């Protein structure tokens, strides 16, 4: 059982609303069943959902201010190491509650991941589709440019971009996305090139559909799957790259809580106030793993070719 037939149907507006709703519901039910068959994936999804909830409800479930602390409470240990329940996971080097910062940090980390991957996907897919469909000089220029970008080691590039643009959240996203789009470009271009050879494209052109319509409605849905796989992989890695950039001093600005910068700035205290770096690291680990597991599982479910036997 797999869930691809309803998708195609759902795109055609000719079917009446009632039937389309029925089919949506059926699709969801099938999805649910598939997930139930894969408890790991389900767990991944649940953890992901918990993180999203934490990000949305941060203001309501926390007590302390994530950006304010007092020096007197610097490096309070977690509650089981002699700390208090007031600061269950301890405090950091400025006396700020770690649990609160981790919860608020979900927002920043997810924003970094989603924005950078989102931009990469949109830009990369658009350019890749255009290059793959039209070929010619557009393809040449874009592909050469993409090769050039790929040849740069990422950190060299990131440091340069951050120095150029200055520190800050938007600039960080820009640096991450500027290198990220190339992968999606290559991927989509390759796929579009392959899809172009198939009959249905010729068929669509014969029926008089415009190029843009062909690209969007016929080709892209088939490409969507690989993009989705790569996207979920990159989501986790973008969040981790933010940590690496913080390690070099180029990450999210203080006092905004971001797991990456928390792990990086706490690394020198791993022998004394180890909680400062470890708990954000674990959060990072859980989020990245749940994204990967859930994404991979979802792909398995949605891929008509990879049926469970």
């Amino acid at each position, binding site marked *: 059982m797999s869930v691809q037939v309803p998708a195609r149907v759902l795109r055609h507006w000719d079917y009446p609303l009632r039937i389309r709703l029925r089919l949506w519901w059926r699709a969801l039910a099938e999805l649910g069943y598939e997930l139930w068959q894969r408890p790991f994936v389900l767990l991944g999804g649940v953890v992901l959902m918990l993180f999203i909830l934490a990000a949305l409800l941060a203001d309501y479930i926390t007590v302390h201010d994530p950006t304010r602390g007092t020096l007197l409470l610097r490096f309070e240990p977690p509650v089981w190491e002699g700390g208090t329940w007031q600061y269950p996971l301890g405090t950091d080097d400025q006396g700020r509650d770690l649990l609160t910062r981790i919860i608020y940090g979900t927002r920043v980390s997810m924003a970094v991941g989603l924005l950078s991957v989102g931009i990469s996907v949109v830009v990369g897919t658009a350019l890749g589709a255009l290059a793959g469909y039209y*070929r010619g000089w557009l393809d040449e220029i874009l592909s050469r440019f993409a090769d050039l970008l790929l040849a*740069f*080691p990422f950190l060299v590039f990131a440091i*340069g971009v951050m120095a*150029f643009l200055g520190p800050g959240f938007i600039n960080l996203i820009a640096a991450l996305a500027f290198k990220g789009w190339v992968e999606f470009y290559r991927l989509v271009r390759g796929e579009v090139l392959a899809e172009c050879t198939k009959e249905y494209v010729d068929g669509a052109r014969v029926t008089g559909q415009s190029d843009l319509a062909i690209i969007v409605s016929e080709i892209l849905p088939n490409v969507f799957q690989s993009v989705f796989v790569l996207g979920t992989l990159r989501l986790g890695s973008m969040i981790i790259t933010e940590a690496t950039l913080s390690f070099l001093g180029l990450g999210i600005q203080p006092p905004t809580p971001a797991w990456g910068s928390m792990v990086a700035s706490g690394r020198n205290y791993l022998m004394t106030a180890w909680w400062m770096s470890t708990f954000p690291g674990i959060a990072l680990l859980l989020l990245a793993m749940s994204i990967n597991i859930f994404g991979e599982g979802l792909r398995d479910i949605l891929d008509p070719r990879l049926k469970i036997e």
Partner: protein
Amino acid sequence: MKDHEPMCQCANVPNVTLKFGALVNWHIGSLGKPMKAIKILERVLATIPIMFAVAIVVFFFIRLTPGDPVDIMLGRGGTVSQREIEELRQQFHLDKPLEIQLWYFLTDAVRGNLGYSYIRNRPVTDLLMERLPATIELTVGSLLISLLVALPIGVLSAVRQNSMLDRLSMAGAFLGISMPGFWLGIILILFFAVRLQWLPVQGRLSYGIPLQEITGFYVLDSLLTGNWRALENSVRHLLLPSITLGLAVAAVIARVLRSSMLEVLRSDYIKLARAKGASEWDVVMKHALRNALIPTVTVVGLQVGVLLSGNMVVETVFGWPGLGRLVVEAIFNRDFPLIQGAVMLYAITFVLTNLVVDILYTYLNPKITL
């Protein structure tokens, strides 16, 4: 209006290959050996203009980035005279317009002179060549570890799809890409080197172990000179950094291998092989794996690029005297010649690696026919 170039690979190769975007449309199998050799030569020669293109882009990029190398060199503290500042600017040609600087750089570069590092005052080529073996050794080590981890995981989880083994090992593989490299590195050091004292903390070789350097690759040199103490010592030093880098790459390779194995295992010729009575081991290892390796090889090639960038962080954490650390320092010091030289080197490596991947690809492909 649009040319639909027939994709010759479409015939027998699983779609998964295309999904991972092969670099070049290569007409496989239809060419004889001499044509292939010429094509390879073509590609190798093509690296030169690419290198120069990269160099020119970097040239402008770093000079337009804020930060003055002379300021940085003179530091914060101590007496500095105006004379010194002006002399340094002259020496580095920084007082001349950009086009002139570019001209100097290009005319030197074609003669093989990549300039002198501002900070270390030595030829850039010397500095790069000195550190290249260390970085290559680390990359190779990481690649080995990642293959060691990824190949079994990929194959086993595809063969036993959706079993507990599949799920656990994929989850384990994901562990590698879910942690920042420097964090994993530091934790490994604290645990294995400080706590257990099983492995060394940093560096390539302990002090006091004599080793005659022939190639610059310590493991290789100890093998060549029969120096078993050095061999053991250098491998022990290579372990933790390689694991740190390798685990991240292993995850990606395992995923790709798993999904392409899954696809291959469902294809017709595998069913045919099974029907013919071939043993499961043969089916999996001889037929399926070989085909599944095709897109995997492409990805491995791309990951070499990732390894080269990831090197910087791991080299810093483990005190590994490689290119990565040199380049990061150079960037923060705005050491223009060194940055330019290093990026050119990375570009060549990247292009050559892709070439090797494509060549490997052609060897793997013809074996499909059954």
